[in-house]
C-alpha cells in the first residue's frame, strides 16, 4: 500500500489530503493564518494522526497554492491550476471546464480527458468578484457564508451592485442596509455581480461542457445558481469543492512516483 500527500496553502484557507493508492483517504482544512509554514505542519500532523501514519510512510508530497514555498516537507511544488485540473479529472474524467472560485481570484480552466490543462484564464490583479468580496459583504450583513448562501436563494429581487470591488462594494452594501433593503436581496445581488464577473472572464476562453465548479465559492449555493443562470449551463458540484487542488497535488505525487 502506498500513501501520498497533497498540501494546498491558499490565501484564505489551506487544505491537505492523503490518498492511498488511488483513493482519497482523509482531508483537513485550516485557515491559512499568517504563518504558512506552521499551518502546513499542522495540516500534516492532523492528516498523519487521522490515518495513524508517520511522515516516513508517505511516499511523496506535492505542495501547491500561493504559499507552496512554505511546505518544507514537500518533494516539489506544482501550480494550483495544474493540481485543480488533475484533482477534478480524478473525480470526473468527463469534465472539460472548471470554474475555480477561490478566495483572492477566479480561474477558468479548460482540461482534456487526461486532466491536462489546455488553456486557462485568471481574474484581474485585485480580489474584485472573488471569495473575498463575498466575505466582506457577508460581514456587513452579519451572517456567515452558510447563511449568506441560504439568504441569497430566498431573494426575489436581487439588488444591483455597481461594483465587484470589495472596498467599494462594502460601502455600497452599507448604504443598501441603511436604505432598508432586505438582506436576502443584498446577498443575491452580490452573488449576481460575482457571477457577472465570472461570465465576462469566460468570454476570454471557449467554455466546453461538462462544466464544474470548485474552491470556497462553490460552497455558496446561491453563487452556483447565479453562475448557472448567467452562463446558461449546469454545473457539476464535487463533494468537497475546496479540496480539489490538494487532491490533485496528491494525485500528481502518486503519478510521478509511479
Amino acid at each position, binding site marked *: 500500500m502506498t500513501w501520498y500527500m497533497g498540501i494546498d496553502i491558499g*490565501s484564505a484557507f489551506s487544505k491537505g489530503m492523503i490518498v492511498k493508492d488511488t483513493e482519497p483517504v482523509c482531508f483537513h482544512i485550516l485557515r491559512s493564518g499568517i504563518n504558512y509554514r506552521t499551518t502546513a505542519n499542522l495540516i500534516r500532523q492532523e492528516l498523519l494522526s487521522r490515518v495513524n501514519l508517520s511522515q516516513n510512510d508517505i511516499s511523496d508530497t506535492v505542495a501547491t497554492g*500561493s504559499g507552496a514555498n512554505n511546505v518544507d516537507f514537500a518533494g516539489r511544488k*506544482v*501550480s*494550483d*491550476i*495544474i493540481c485543480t485540473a*488533475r484533482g477534478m479529472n480524478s473525480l470526473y474524467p468527463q469534465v472539460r471546464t472548471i470554474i475555480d472560485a477561490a478566495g*483572492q*481570484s477566479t*480561474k477558468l480552466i479548460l482540461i482534456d480527458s487526461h*486532466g*491536462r*490543462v489546455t488553456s*486557462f484564464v*485568471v*481574474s*484581474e*490583479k485585485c480580489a474584485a468578484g472573488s471569495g473575498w468580496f463575498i466575505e466582506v459583504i457577508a460581514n456587513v450583513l452579519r451572517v456567515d457564508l452558510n447563511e449568506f448562501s441560504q439568504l441569497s436563494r430566498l431573494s426575489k429581487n436581487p439588488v444591483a451592485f455597481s461594483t465587484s470591488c470589495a472596498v467599494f462594494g462594502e460601502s455600497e452594501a452599507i448604504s443598501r442596509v441603511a436604505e432598508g433593503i432586505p438582506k436576502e436581496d443584498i446577498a443575491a445581488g452580490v452573488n449576481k455581480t460575482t457571477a457577472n464577473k465570472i461570465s465576462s472572464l469566460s468570454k476570454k476562453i471557449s467554455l466546453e461542457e461538462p462544466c464544474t465548479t470548485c474552491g470556497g465559492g462553490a460552497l455558496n449555493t446561491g453563487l452556483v445558481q447565479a453562475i448557472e443562470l448567467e452562463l446558461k449551463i449546469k454545473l457539476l458540484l464535487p463533494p468537497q469543492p475546496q479540496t480539489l487542488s490538494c487532491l490533485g497535488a496528491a494525485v*500528481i505525487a502518486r503519478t510521478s512516483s509511479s
Partner: protein
Amino acid sequence: MHLIVPGEKLFMEETLKRFIAAKQSLYDNLKQWKKASGKKIVGCHPMDIPEEIVHAAGMLPITLMGFDGAITHATRSLQPTIACNILLENLEMCLNGTLDFLDGVIFADVCDTIPILSDIWLRHSHHVLHHLMVMPKHLNSPSSRRRVSEQFLRLKAAIEKQNNKKISDRALKHSIGVYNQNRRLLKRLYDLRLCKPGLLSASDVSAVVTAGMLMRKEDHNQLVEQLLLELENLPVPTSDMHVKLIVSGSLCGHCDSVLSVIDAQGAYILEDDLYIGSRYFTSLTNEDIDPIEALAQRYVDDIPSPTKFFDANAWANYISNMVIRDKADGIIIVMRKLCEIHADDFPCIQNKLNNGGIPCLMIEIERAGVSEQDKTRIQAFIDMLGVQ
C-alpha cells in the same frame, strides 16, 4: 544563479555582483563618477536613441529606466490614465530632483505620450540640453533614411551647441566601434546561454544588460569580457528537464519581477526579445561608411519594432521565428499597461503564435512588482508546458 563548478563559483559571483551593484547603486555611482571625471551625463529616455553621438561628445549617455519609489508629483502633470508607468516614474525622478545631476535629456517620440512628457520635462527641469527627436514612422519610403539622418544631425548639432565643440567623424566612428564591441560581447553572452541553457539565470542576464545601459560602455565591455572568459570555461551539463522559453516585450523598461518568477519556477530562457535585452544590442552599425549615415541605416534596418512601421506582421514573424528556431516550448510576452504601441501589435502577434501552435502567455505589468495572479499565471503556464 545556476553555477555548476564549485571552485569557480565565487570568482564568477564576484563579477556578477559588480553588474548587480552597478544597477542597484545607480545614482550614487553616477554622481561619484561625474565628480571624479568632470564629465557630463545625459539621460536617454527609452527607446531608439543613437547613444553613440552622445558618447562621441565625451558625455556619458545613460538610459532612464524608472524607479520603484512612490509616484507623487508626476501624476499632477501627466494623466496616469494615458501614461505608462515608465513615463510617470521617469517624470517623477525629474520632478523630485533625483535626476538633477544630469546635464541633459534626450527623447525620441517612440509613442504619442513622449512628446507630452518632453514638454512637461522642459517646463520643470534645469537640464541645459533638452532634445526631442521626431522620427519618421513609416520606414519603407525612399526618403525615410534621409529623414532619420536629419534627426540625428539635429541631435548632433544640439549637443555640439551645448558643448561649444564639434563632434568629429573620427570620434563618432570610434564611439560606434565601442558600441559595436559591446553588442558583439552581449551577443556572445546570449549565444552562450542559448547553447548552455541554465548557465545564467534570467535575472543575472538582465543585470548584465541593465548595467551596460547605466555605465561607460568601455567599462562594461571589460566586465562582460571577464564574465565571458569565466563562463566559456564552465562545463555546464545541459538538461532537457527544464521548460525552455522565449520572453518578449517589456518595452522601455525592465521586467525583472517576471524574470524572477520564471527563474524560481526552474524554467530556462533560451533567448529574449526584451528592450533590456536583445532589442537593445542586436543590430550592429556599419563602421565603413559616413557615421551618421551608418547610424541611420542601423535605425532603419534594425530588428522589427512597434516604433517603426514596415509591415504589420514583421514583429510577429520575428518573434515566432525565434521560438521555432530555438525550439522553445513557449513564449511569455510582457506588456506594459497602457503601452499602446505594444497593445496595437499584440493581436497580430497572438494570431501568428496561435496559428503556429506556439503556446503563449501575455502578462501585463504596471510597475516593478508582479501580482499574485500573474505569478499564478506564469507558474501554471510553465507547469502546463512541463509537469503535465
